[in-house]
């Protein structure tokens, strides 16, 4: 059973009369209880994808396709119904916890507000509940920290607060957008272990966005690779047997693993993607068809899709 199904999602923005294709026709699904990783370079459309799942992108020029959450099309929902899904069914953890919390209110204040957005609880009850949540995500001295302002807490603590907030309304899908990018290495591990623990405890489905492939390899079931607003490869054992030259290049960019092949050139401008396969200017295996015809996602192995004219097993 799919908890989330995305069909042909397109998100365009208009900038100075030009159309910016941030996300250009992607489709994927997340199974109940599964964690899907979403990886790609900066600007490949990962965050825009995450935000558009609950219609959070501001002023899109075009927002089309379908996002089905438990069968309900998010894009067709009235905004009042959508608000009941945001936070209560689909919750987010953002990249920068400090700037994602309101600087003029205490942590407790904000938690209580979110709890009371979705549950009929008095302030007192909500506070007790918030304390419980803070303890659950491993914040020491929860009572004192509930009364702290975000700037008084460390980055790791703030990220824990955000996780507690995201969990406080019992969502079934958690979208973590680079939750550890701004943290130091030891805190990173702690936060990742925390996310993994609560995912099990709360039976969450997870969409995990990062550019750190190692994290995805360890913490997710399946991985989708985005390039220039499209998914170029999606599947389970992506890292063992990548079919797409871009996935291969990303993997080799990690030090010491596949050292012989780096990635040349730059990601194309989202205002004007190259014709044909968007990766062809950087692809070491390109042939003439790659410059003319856009490849579509095709099942190469069971559950493993690749958008490439000449998919090949790159490793071994």
């Amino acid at each position, binding site marked *: 059973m799919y908890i989330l199904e995305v069909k042909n999602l397109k998100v365009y923005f208009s900038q100075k009369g030009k159309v910016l294709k941030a996300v250009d026709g992607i489709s994927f699904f997340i199974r109940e209880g599964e964690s899907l990783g979403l990886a790609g370079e900066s600007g490949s459309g990962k965050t825009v994808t995450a*935000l558009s799942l609950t219609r959070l992108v501001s002023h899109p020029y075009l927002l089309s396709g379908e996002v089905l959450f438990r069968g309900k099309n998010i894009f067709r929902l009235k905004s009042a119904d959508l*608000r009941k*899904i*945001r936070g*209560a069914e689909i919750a987010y953890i953002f990249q920068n916890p400090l700037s994602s919390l309101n600087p*003029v209110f205490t942590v407790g204040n904000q938690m209580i507000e979110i709890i009371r957005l979705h549950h009929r609880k008095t302030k007192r009850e909500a506070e007790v509940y918030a304390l419980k949540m803070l303890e659950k995500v491993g914040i020491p001295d929860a009572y004192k920290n509930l009364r702290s302002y975000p700037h008084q807490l460390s980055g790791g603590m703030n990220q824990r607060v955000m996780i507690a907030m995201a969990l406080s*309304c019992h969502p079934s899908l958690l979208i973590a957008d680079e939750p550890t990018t701004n943290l130091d290495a030891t805190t990173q591990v702690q936060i990742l272990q925390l996310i993994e623990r609560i995912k099990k405890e709360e039976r969450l489905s997870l969409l995990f966005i990062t550019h750190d492939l190692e994290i995805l390899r360890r913490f997710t079931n399946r991985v989708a690779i985005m390039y220039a607003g499209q998914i170029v490869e999606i599947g389970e054992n992506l890292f063992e047997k990548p079919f797409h030259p871009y996935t291969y290049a990303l993997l080799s960019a990690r030090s010491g693993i596949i050292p012989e092949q780096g990635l040349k050139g730059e990601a194309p401008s989202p205002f004007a993607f190259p014709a044909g396969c968007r990766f062809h200017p950087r692809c070491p295996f390109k042939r003439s068809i790659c410059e003319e015809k856009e490849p579509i996602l095709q099942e190469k192995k069971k559950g493993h899709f690749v958008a490439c004219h000449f998919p090949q097993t790159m490793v071994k």
Partner: protein
Amino acid sequence: MSRRFILSGSLIIGILIILALFAPLLSPYDPNKIDVENILSPPSKAHILGTDSLGRDLLSRILYGTRVSLKVGVVAVGIALLIGVAIGALAGYCSGRIDALLMRFVDIMLCFPTFFLLLSMVAFLRPTVFNIMLIIGLTSWMGVARIVRAEVLSIKEREFIRYIKAMGAGDMRIVSKHILPNVLPSILVVGILRMGGAILTESALSFLGLGVQPPIPSWGSILMEGKSVMDIAWWMSVFPGIAILLTVLGYNLLAEGIRTLAISRS
């Protein structure tokens, strides 16, 4: 430095508020009691600040004038903030067409020379104290709207607004509970600055005889009366002038102090 500004500003304003509250107790005479035997007497033991051309005690009149001035400041600014914050927040948050429409309206209002606007409104409304406050409020909200709009525009793009939205908050809640508290320091500063401005405007209107009407004592109207006798009764112009100066200075010091404090905090 900012602390010293706040301290001296609030000291001045605090004293003025006390003077206004206890004006009946502190004034040595009834401010409207005419004493034909003591017309234009210079400052003396009996009349510390002298008397005016009707023999009324100047100190008592200035003390009672404090009430008018402070009230005008607070109420007029209250009205201006109410309109300005509402329009600015709406324009900044909605952006697009609503923003363009509202801001062109602000531009149109700003195109009128303020005093011309004031004078024409005074012509239509009876010059009671409340109407004067209303008119000053209605002609001074545009600056507030512009500042609030600019602040809302920048704050609504901040990450925490997107986050609270992602957690299911509606637009009304986002604006009133998350954006406006972040704009509060700026609102406070403009508000306090405008209070000084509103008092000046009231004094100017009263000076022209279009503001608070006699016999209600107002600093501006005392100044006007003093103008015709400036060569023989300097105290009629100097003391109400000092009162206006001190009040506006107090408000400006306070506003400047809060502004620098807010900047150093953020």
